[in-house]
């Protein structure tokens, strides 16, 4: 971490960048917040630890409007979001200076709580163990059990965009090996259920939605200046959980709007206060796109055409959905 601070100070001092976008230590061990640093001395509060789950690329849209270059610390999966934003002309590469930081998976305070730990004052990683200091004594749990779901199916440790790397190696494999799980397993489990049960599953999950828009606002792909759901002309109860239809509509349309653009960074599920597995919607689209139109990873590059703005003469017909007997 000290290395990151030193390098950031250098870049600020020699005028390469005008500000630094990173994380700042919180009051408790598990709540670092995304932060902007403009002066070298501010960087004393800088922190980078496994609780720095926030994907900072979303903030680059705002940073792009400011004078000068912004130094940003991106984890491997965050760089996909960055590329996607560059592709959509929402962020300019030349206004950004990326330091790619290594990542061994980020942690979910909710999971630590779910493991029965109350009153978490501090937490530190020790090898494969997470040591937690709570109000009710010292506790520990396997690190793997505290990882965010998205990290259990890590898509790789390779940064796809960076100016320099610190604490990370180009081409490094997704690993600790066991973390590179099958990210479509969850989707497949659902697909295998009878429609009625699938419906019940989503009904249960989506009816928890409180319409806080955290998923949308944290999502780097949701970069519209004005969201369709914020329009006063839009005949929908956009702030009210008035009818289960509204939540279904919101989440289907949101997932659809980012289909082919979603890099699967998992921020939506991370920020949802009600723990709705929203990534399962996005991954369904990703999986369908892969099967129907060929493997595609949004954000892997900045030039290729997105699947929904492209076509081939031989594309499958929509009837395929019923022909193959439902979602598979």
């Amino acid at each position, binding site marked *: 971490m000290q290395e990151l601070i030193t390098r950031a100070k250098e870049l600020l001092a020699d005028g390469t960048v005008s500000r630094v976008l990173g994380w700042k230590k*919180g*009051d*408790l061990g598990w*709540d*670092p*917040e*995304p*932060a*902007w640093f403009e002066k070298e001395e501010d960087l004393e509060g800088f922190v980078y630890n496994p609780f720095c789950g*926030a994907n900072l690329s*979303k*903030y680059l849209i705002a940073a792009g409007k400011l004078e000068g270059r912004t130094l940003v610390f991106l984890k491997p999966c965050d760089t996909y979001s960055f590329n996607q934003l560059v592709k959509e002309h929402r962020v300019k590469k030349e206004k950004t200076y990326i330091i790619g930081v290594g990542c061994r998976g980020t942690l979910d*305070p909710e999971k630590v709580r779910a493991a029965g730990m*109350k*009153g*978490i*004052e501090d937490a530190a990683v020790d090898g494969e163990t997470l040591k937690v200091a*709570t*109000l*009710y004594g010292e506790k520990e749990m396997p690190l793997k059990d505290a990882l965010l779901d998205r990290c259990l199916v890590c898509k790789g440790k390779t940064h796809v965009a960076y100016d320099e790397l610190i604490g990370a190696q180009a081409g490094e494999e997704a690993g600790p090996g066991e973390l590179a799980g099958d990210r479509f397993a969850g989707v497949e489990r659902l697909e295998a259920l009878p429609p009625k049960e699938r419906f019940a599953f989503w009904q*249960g*999950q989506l009816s*928890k939605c*409180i*319409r*806080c*828009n*955290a998923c*949308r*606002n*944290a999502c780097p792909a949701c970069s519209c200046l004005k969201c369709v759901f*914020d329009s*006063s002309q839009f*005949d929908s*109860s956009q*702030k*009210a*959980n*008035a009818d289960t239809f509204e939540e279904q509509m919101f989440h289907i349309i949101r997932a659809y709007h980012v289909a082919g653009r979603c890099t699967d960074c998992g*921020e939506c599920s*991370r*920020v949802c*206060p*009600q*723990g709705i597995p929203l990534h399962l919607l996005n991954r369904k689209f990703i999986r369908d796109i892969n099967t129907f139109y060929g493997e595609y990873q949004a954000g892997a590059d900045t030039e290729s055409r997105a699947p929904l703005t492209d076509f081939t003469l031989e594309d499958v017909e929509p009837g395929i959905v019923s022909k193959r007997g439902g979602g598979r």
Partner: protein
Amino acid sequence: MYQMKKDRLTELFQAISGTKDLFLPLRKCDQTNYGLWTPEEVFDLETLKTVKSAKDCFFPQSEVLYRCKTEDGKISIDPQKLCDRPFVVFGMRACDVKAVEVLDRVFLSEPVDTFYAARREHGTIVSLACHEPEETCFCRNFGVDAAASGADVETWIIGDSLYWKPLTEKGEALTESLQAVLEAADGEASACEAEETVAREQEAIRGVIEKLPFSHLDLSRFQPENTMELFDSPLWEELYKPCLACGTCTFVCPTCQCYDIRDFDSGKNGVQRYRCWDSCMYSDFTMMAHGNLRTSQMQRFRQRFMHKLVYYPANNDGLYSCVGCGRCVSKCPASLNIVKVIKKLGGEA
């Protein structure tokens, strides 16, 4: 003081729900939120904080005010019936109970909000003491006693027993109707013992509360006379930066009371006029014909905290409209929260 075995809770809930609606923290799809209890539902009294507060029981996130319809060229208006069925909310924590006082001052002062008033009139609050307070709690700063909420009925779960103590007329009436389930602590000796057990628990809770990381915040600068100084503080520019402008903090907050009124045109069923919670973090908050008076996220962010810490107390005898439940502390996607604001503006950090 009454007492009963914890394993008879379902019996107690059945007795309550026989004559009244009963709202309990229910476990659904891995989350705990207040909801109408039926024997099929799973209640969860272990989770300290429900995701959303119990505010929904008195001021639901979305409620219809009236419906209107055009038939044969005539418009008919059908007002929504007010709540007329008694209900009980069981398991509210002391902070949520205090939050009801904050809401009361808004909705029960002139002009009285009839929807809210009807619910308050028919609702009885049974609180549950916080056996193990968490690090995100900072209720102590706002005069909340996690061990004694001052609700209609106070309860404690200690060991395998539930202790039940009615405090108000409503609480007495509810207790009266539950005589079959609750066992009055018979005789002086056992009454004394119950009192002592509860007192010990209260002491333990207060002991933990004292030691919580956020239990001793300095609120001295949040005074009406500092309004302009706080409003103009350059620190807001720095504080709001990570804010993603979502409404999580406002929707999980037990005291946020802003709402929007909108129409939903359902076609042949006519128009429903409903109100729903609004969030000052949203860009369409307080949108008027001429536009919006808060044009930047910094202003919207400032509004939320100035309202909670300065404007509201200035108009309500110094009562802060934050109760320190800590939901925003654990739920904010960017780990921002009112504690950070209090520390920064209060000069602590």
